[in-house]
């Protein structure tokens, strides 16, 4: 497909949001019945207007730092036609009436762009209808500006606050008949609004999951089996129970993780086995944990080691691949031609962890057959479903409060800590705050999968890429890849190379894998864009020129979700222009590199300029980003922040690895899984192309290109290609 046209986009969103529309209307009465707020307008569950003109807008998405708490209400406020200063943002509870409540996959914008503007537009229509009825004029004669309805002919105006009570009685208009604003009339969309919780953040208010306190609350640690699937044989629980402050210590038998949940939207973690310690303070619980003496039955994964995995991958790479995922043309014939140059390379990358700065936690209160939770989950609705399954209780008896999460990056798509907290609360019959130590977090993650990429490709005498063979060795069983660890036959450069083969082999794996910010893309971009640089070199071409030529082989329009070549060429050209690609004289040891990647509907190209010292310290001097996420960048300030953060995040990933020894994760804290520091952060310029496409998400797509941009720059500066991550394995680090 070339682009998602407006019509098909609307259809998709109507399907996905079917429940949303129903919920929106059916809850009108319930919202109105909330009690004595005489002049409060509640035409929907999202908008309420007080008589003093304060407009409360409900944000339905979880917030873990993407500014969705601002962004969704901005869309409503725009079409409602109110001044942003009038708006008070209210965080939704988890309730079917709100429709999709989910933060992940860069979907907040595509899931809400139409729906939230329609909510605002519908509320505005009801206010106009109320005014028209009051004045005895037609709706068509009325207009609105910043929180008021006007009737020009009679020079009458009424504020939304004045009209609220009456407007609440008006019929809710059919969303399809709404006339939404033209983009040129936007006053809020496209204008920076600062995070609504900034003041609470800078004054230390208790707004995060870890800060939740409920009366009578106890504190828990959960010491899980170090090897996935292990069981407790025995433990010194009697001694532990004697320790100061300890109230309970008990074995959690665990429940196996069902194997048939293919993605994060329905992942069921089961329950790992371990020892729960519940105490008067978290410190007491965690100190008691240090005295634990547990005998484990470590189960079938106890012998898994990273070194053995690497050996096995090497063997597999020499055998016939297990599966062929895509085959175009005849790549073997191309490799035999005498007029081609063949390049062969292998790229190796590790597991890495999400490690959001706020360790996983959840406060749960099981009482009288009902469960109440305070959670930072990115998928609270899924969470409720799996809790109902785990505890054998109906979903209607489970109430989940969404609390700000200290970073997500995909980790909070998974609800394992939520299940543990609920389980422990039910066992002890008291409210419990479960808090993982950082060690728990790094050693019990849903890791970004590692893998091994074997690549072979050919360029012809004219420098054209004519054949591409890729054998991916990863994890999984049989026909199934481990979660978020697959390769996809639609990934670039497939379709752009006439002879193309993608094959895969898998190895079994004990630890869990999962979606980490720009899943797969966050590392395949480095693999493919680095290899494309190798091919540009073989072709004797400039890396930008080679890429543009490759993109200009655009195949006929394909299916939805596949990269549009023109949009990508546009961001490549823009980033080349902004960075002065090929135009600036750089000193010896300093060079530029480029990478581009399409993911999550977003188009990004990035250039890095680096200086590499003799001892392989990389100073990233500057980064340029060009992105196309559609016709609007809804909140420009937050978007720049998020994009710069994606670059920093990608740099950190070049330093990180999770390894296995005897079935358990070796790394335990940030010293072994580092983050880039302020002094290593380059200036990052962000440029946008506003293309004629529906606005799409930004949480993820800006990340992937930075890894190859830096790695390619390092090659240009030093002649050494980074083919193994973390790059510290090749002696590279950031200055």
């Amino acid at each position, binding site marked *: 497909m070339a682009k998602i046209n407006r019509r098909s986009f609307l259809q998709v969103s109507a399907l996905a949001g079917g429940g949303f529309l129903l919920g929106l209307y059916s809850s009108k009465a319930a919202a109105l019945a909330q009690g004595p707020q005489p002049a409060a307008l509640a035409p929907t569950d999202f908008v309420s207007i007080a008589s003093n003109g304060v407009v409360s807008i409900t944000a339905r998405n979880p917030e873990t730092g993407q500014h969705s708490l601002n962004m969704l209400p901005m869309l409503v406020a725009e079409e409602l036609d109110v001044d942003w200063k009038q708006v008070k943002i209210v965080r939704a509870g988890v309730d079917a009436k709100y429709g999709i409540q989910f933060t992940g996959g860069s979907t907040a914008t595509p899931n809400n762009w139409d729906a939230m503007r329609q909510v605002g537009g519908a509320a505005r229509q009801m206010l106009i209808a109320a005014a028209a009825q009051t004045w005895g004029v037609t709706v068509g004669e009325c207009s609105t500006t910043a929180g008021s309805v006007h009737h020009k002919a009679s020079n009458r105006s009424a504020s939304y606050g004045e009209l609220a009570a009456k407007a609440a009685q008006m019929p809710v208009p059919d969303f399809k008949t709404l006339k939404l604003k033209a983009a040129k009339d936007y006053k809020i969309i496209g204008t920076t609004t600062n995070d609504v919780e900034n003041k609470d953040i800078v004054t230390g208010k208790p707004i995060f999951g870890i800060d939740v306190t409920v009366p009578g609350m106890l504190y828990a640690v959960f010491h899980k089996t170090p090897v996935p699937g292990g069981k407790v044989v025995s433990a010194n629980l009697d001694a532990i129970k004697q320790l100061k402050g300890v109230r309970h210590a008990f074995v959690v038998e665990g429940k196996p993780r069902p194997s048939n949940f293919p993605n994060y939207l329905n992942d069921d973690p089961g329950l790992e086995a371990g020892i729960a310690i519940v105490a008067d303070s978290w410190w007491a619980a965690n100190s008691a944990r240090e005295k634990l003496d547990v005998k484990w039955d470590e189960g079938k994964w106890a012998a898994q080691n990273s070194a053995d995995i690497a050996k096995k991958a090497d063997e597999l790479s020499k055998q016939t691949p297990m599966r062929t995922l895509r085959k175009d043309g005849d790549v073997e014939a191309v490799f035999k031609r005498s007029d081609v140059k063949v390049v062969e390379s292998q790229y190796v990358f590790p597991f890495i962890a999400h490690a959001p700065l706020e360790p996983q936690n959840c406060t749960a209160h099981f009482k009288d057959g009902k469960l109440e939770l305070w959670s930072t989950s990115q998928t609270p609705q899924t969470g409720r479903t799996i809790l109902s399954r785990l505890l054998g209780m109906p979903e209607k008896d489970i109430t989940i409060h969404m609390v700000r999460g200290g970073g997500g990056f995909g980790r909070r798509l998974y609800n394992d800590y939520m299940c543990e907290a609920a389980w422990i609360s039910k066992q002890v019959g008291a409210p419990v705050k479960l808090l993982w130590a950082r060690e728990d977090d790094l050693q019990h993650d849903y890791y970004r999968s590692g893998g091994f990429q074997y690549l072979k490709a050919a360029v012809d005498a004219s420098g054209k890429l004519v054949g591409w063979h890729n054998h991916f060795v990863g994890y999984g069983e049989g026909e199934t890849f481990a979660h978020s660890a697959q390769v996809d036959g639609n990934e670039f450069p497939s379709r752009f190379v006439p002879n193309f083969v993608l094959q895969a082999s898998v190895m079994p794996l004990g630890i869990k894998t999962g979606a980490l910010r720009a899943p797969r893309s966050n590392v395949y971009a480095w693999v493919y864009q680095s290899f494309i640089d190798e091919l540009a070199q073989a072709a004797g071409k400039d890396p930008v020129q080679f890429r543009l030529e490759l993109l200009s082989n655009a195949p006929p329009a394909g299916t939805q979700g596949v990269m549009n070549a023109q949009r990508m060429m546009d961001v490549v050209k823009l980033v080349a222009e902004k960075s002065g690609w090929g135009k600036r004289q750089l000193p010896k040891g300093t060079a530029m590199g480029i990478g581009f990647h399409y993911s999550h509907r977003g188009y990004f190209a990035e250039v890095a300029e680096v200086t590499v010292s003799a001892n392989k310290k990389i100073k990233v001097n500057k980064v340029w980003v060009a992105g196309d996420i559609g016709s609007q960048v809804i909140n420009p300030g937050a978007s720049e922040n998020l994009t710069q953060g994606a670059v920093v995040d990608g740099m950190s990933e070049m330093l990180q690895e999770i390894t296995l020894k005897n079935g358990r994760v070796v790394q335990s804290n940030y010293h072994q899984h580092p983050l*880039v520091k*302020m002094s290593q952060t380059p200036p990052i310029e962000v440029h946008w192309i506003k293309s004629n496409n529906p606005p799409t998400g930004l949480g993820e797509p800006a990340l992937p290109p930075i890894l190859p941009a830096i790695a390619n720059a390092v090659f240009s500066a030093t002649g050494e290609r980074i083919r193994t991550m973390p790059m510290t394995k090749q002696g590279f680090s950031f200055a």
Partner: protein
Amino acid sequence: MIKLKVNGKNQQFDGDPEMPLLWFLRDELNLKGTKFGCGFGMCGACTIHLNGKPTRACLTPVSAAANASITTIEGISPDGSHPVQVAWQELDVPQCGYCQAGQIMSACALLAKNPKPTDADIDSAMNGNLCRCGTYLRIRAAIHQAAELKASAATKPAKAGAKASGAGTNFAPRKSGKQ
């Protein structure tokens, strides 16, 4: 019995003297602004001031704070009006926000002894504070802005909305007209 001052108030503690200050502040005094990130001195989320010096509360046993004066994020201003807090909000620094209390405590300590820090001064004072979301460029710009706010407050009444100096930072303008 350990006695200490927290945000100007006298406090005492007769529990485990080895308990890190972090948990005393968070769970005994219910001051939740100081954050737990690593418990290992690696991230700076738990930064507080101990007798004015930026200190990792996760590694400091309560006993080491006996008779000391502690300041937490809740104590640097009654209402979020400290120039560092103001600059942080004006430049919309936070993403998830979790590291920011620790960042702000390190920044306040820096500005207290160096009212006009250079980028290099800022980097060296702030390098122990990790931000998983990568907001470093804004943190640096906000420290410059806070320095200006402080300086102008010293000479004349505070002016709202001072611009970031951006000196040597390449902090792109937040918004230049309609996008």
